[in-house]
């Protein structure tokens, strides 16, 4: 019972860890380059969740001073993660651009086939 309670109280951490492991597994286990990038994105998404979770205060509002409110959420993680999201988007875009060029040069985006093509040289 205690275990279920701990689980339920920390469910967003459980989701974070699940996304982290799922993303990392995709990066390691898949040979398709686009799938690898998707795995990488999922992995990065888990970090966004990791940061946002402790920043939320239940009942707190956006941190804009107003006499009607007294409890505010911490804005810092949102700002940090906005930056991290932009970094993630840039990485994904660059990764996809590289995959497009790899596909043009090799005619495939499967890693094992590409290695086989380079070994032929």
């Amino acid at each position: 019972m205690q275990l279920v309670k701990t689980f339920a109280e920390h469910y967003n951490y459980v989701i974070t860890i699940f996304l982290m492991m799922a993303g990392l597994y995709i990066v390691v286990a898949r040979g398709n380059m686009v799938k690898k990038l998707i795995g990488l994105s999922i992995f990065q998404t888990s970090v966004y969740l990791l940061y946002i979770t402790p920043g939320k205060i239940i009942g707190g509002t956006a941190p804009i001073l107003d006499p009607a409110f007294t409890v505010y959420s911490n804005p810092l993680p949102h700002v940090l993660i906005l930056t991290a999201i932009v970094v993630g988007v840039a990485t994904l875009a660059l990764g996809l651009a590289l995959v497009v060029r790899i596909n043009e040069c090799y005619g495939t985006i499967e890693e094992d086939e590409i290695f086989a093509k380079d070994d032929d040289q």
Partner: protein
Amino acid sequence: MSLDLILRIGTKLILPFILLFALYVQFHGDYGPGGGFQAGVIAGGMVILIGITFGLGTAKRIAPQVMVERMVPLGVLIYAGTGVAGLLLGKNFLDYGVLGHDPVHARELGILLVELGVLITVSGTMTALFYAFVERGR
């Protein structure tokens, strides 16, 4: 070019509202959720929508490639320039407190300028990415 009448008319109807929403998100960013990043993506999305429904040629008439590619460094220049302006006026880099007659207004002006830079860079980048990917393999 798509011949689907509903898509084309629907796109035409929705376009001004997308742009208006982008501007709302941009200028409401200091008192609510929003800011340059989100507004930039929405504005970039507008060009992408035009490109998808009316073809790349139409999109490029509205947002020429040369302009889009110049927008990317221009936005960063506005951001960095705002920082340097603080530096030239004797304060630290990115200190906007000296840009106006009193610090509160000066900081508001500073953050608006920075967000303007972000808007330009992000919308430019989104559009440039779209053009770059669409043009491959032609």
